[in-house]
């Protein structure tokens, strides 16, 4: 098993650090999946995976190389503590000049970050972080596959994060469940039911990207905390966001940052009464 890569671009370093920080905010543990073309972060909620963040290796890294356990396997799955990762990469933004990431075996498998930092003297400063990891055996890989969804009933562009956040932060305290409904005219409504009031917030004039629904509105109820957790991804400054719903089954939110980063978030619907 072998993995190595290098990052030199400041933009990539910043984005990578943002992703790692957001991952740490959402979950204690995360799974990194390395393939020949992509670098995935996978966050599981309890046991079910929820978030797939896909980074295009061509954009982020140079000298990228992955060798699996055998010659015909070109993937590696590993699990690690996301807070450790976030702390180690937090210096990427400020001081790092270049970073080498390698899979190493120092007493135990580690993901090693060799960070070259700018310094006041001519010679550069080096900082090496060894983050302990657990390699995930191949038989468990299918657990981390993305859900396969043929077609969503409706797909709509999402309102801006800052509007979403302020609304969600208030609604979070009212009810544990949030009902998301989208109608074919491009209105996204978030509804929270409390004992004494029902609050719904409408975001009109959104572009409907795709619609395959029989009814005029498609709605699904989800755990409001899970939906709110997603707002943390604002940190990566996505360029486009869309929301896909299958009525009473699943809400899927996709974020993309240009063409090199893609984040998919699946929130299963809960029973609503």
């Amino acid at each position, binding site marked *: 098993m072998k993995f190595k890569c290098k990052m030199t671009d400041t933009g990539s370093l910043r984005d990578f650090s943002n992703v790692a920080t957001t991952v740490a905010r959402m979950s204690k543990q995360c799974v990194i999946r390395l393939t020949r073309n992509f670098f995935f972060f996978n966050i599981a909620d309890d046991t079910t995976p929820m978030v797939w963040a896909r980074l295009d290796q061509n954009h982020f890294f140079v000298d990228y190389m992955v060798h699996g356990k055998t010659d015909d396997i070109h993937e590696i799955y590993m699990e690690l503590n996301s807070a*450790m990762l976030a*702390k*180690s990469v*937090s*210096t990427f933004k400020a*001081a790092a000049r270049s970073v080498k990431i390698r899979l190493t075996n*120092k*007493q*135990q498998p*580690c993901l090693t970050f060799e*960070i070259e*930092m700018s*310094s*006041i*003297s*001519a*010679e550069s*400063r*080096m*900082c*090496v*972080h*060894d*983050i*302990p990891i*657990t390699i995930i055996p191949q038989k468990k890989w299918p657990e981390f596959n993305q859900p396969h969804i043929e077609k969503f009933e409706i797909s709509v562009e999402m309102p801006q994060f800052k509007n979403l956040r302020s609304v969600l932060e208030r609604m979070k305290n009212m009810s544990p469940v949030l009902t998301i409904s989208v109608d074919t005219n491009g209105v996204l409504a978030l509804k929270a039911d409390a004992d004494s009031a029902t609050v719904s917030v409408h975001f009109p004039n959104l572009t409907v990207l795709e619609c395959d629904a029989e009814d005029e509105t498609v709605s699904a109820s989800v755990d409001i905390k899970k939906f709110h957790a997603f707002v943390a991804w604002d940190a990566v400054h996505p360029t486009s966001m869309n929301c896909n719903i299958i009525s009473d089954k699943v809400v899927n939110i996709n974020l993309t940052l240009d063409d090199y980063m893609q984040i998919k978030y699946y929130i299963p619907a809960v029973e609503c009464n």
Partner: protein
Amino acid sequence: MKCVVSGINIKILARAIQMLSKIGEEMFVQPQEDCLSFRTVNSSNSAFVDITFQENYFSYYAYEDLEESDSLKCKILIRSALAVFKGNLDKQVESCHIQLDPNSEQLTFVLKYRNSIIKTHLLPILDCETIKANYKKDGTANHLRIQPRVMNDVVQNFQQSLLEITLEVLQEKVLIRNYIDESSNVSNETRTQCNFSVGEFDEYNIESDTIITFCLKELRAILSLADILSQPIDIHFERPGRPVVFVCKSGSMESNLVLATLNPDTESASQSTTSTRQNPAPKKVTKRAPRGKGIKSLGKKSYTNSAHSRAMESADMESPGRISDVSDLPTQNNRRKSVTDVSKADPFTPRSSRESTSVLRLEAAEHPASSERTNLASSLMKRKSIDQDGDESSRDMDNDDLVQNSPPRPKSKKAKLIFQKCFQKTFDPNNLPGHSNVEVEDSSESSEND
């Protein structure tokens, strides 16, 4: 003692007290003829700070009463001093007066605001004692000087929760890494190592390659102070097991931080001799402690607990000499020695500790043998820590309990509460309605036989 601090110096004083608060809980205020010192020591005696303000730092400084100079020293809670400088002061506060009268019960801080508000803080004095540490900072084998910003950049790479770091100085470069003892589980920790070149130091004098390990928390505290003063930090150290001294000097003030370093000779031995304590303080200064006795690492709490139980189980396997390793307090460290020795032997013994803990100490003079135990017991109680390994010490612990005479256990209240009424003197079962009704007849032998 009376003094006035004004202008920007108030902010420096506030920061200095903040820095002290990160290390210890009590602050020793020691006015001298031409300077005022604030000192503190952490609960495990592994870190000591002395911040001294020269006369020219103050806009007015009067030491006064030379005859009574001995009474001019006090110990206060840092928390109370912190409250004085709470909030954003620097803009509105014009001056700060500090007054300490002989035999007073309070240390007075008067803050004068621009809008003619005057706030007077009376900080209760806990004790009239001072503390002195015995350390050497000039002419040590190794001396580095570095800008706090550079050091901060390096330290920032480490996890926030990290307790100890290892500094390795080589002729051409410096390595800083997190300290991992053999017992800690490597899978729970990021291992981090930073190298930086000699060029980043303002001064770099190394006699020989040295590796020392010390606490990070205290280092962070002095770094943040040095950062505000924008003064370089001098690091003086000799070899592992000997204290490392961080000095940050600006024109009118000097702060010294003395930190214990891990002694590699006793490191492995001491790992089983940990104690449970609230504040996981890692080490013990062993300035004059006999050779081979020294510091221990109490790094992680979880480890501490398990090791503690292990130490209990294997009590008789421990060598008796080990006890001093687990010492928590000066007296323990040298408990086999005579009492007088004790205060001399430990660098951090409060000078007047014999006066302050007078009851116990007086006893000590009469019964030297038991006194140390008494002292130990009281100190242990204070800190809520139980240290033990070695059969001898566990035996001591039993005795300690006796000496301490713990209060009797309160009786269980529950028994009293149930049927409480029945036990009252005024209770008469005949008064109860229906007391004469018989619900079930007594069973007789004959009926049973039927």
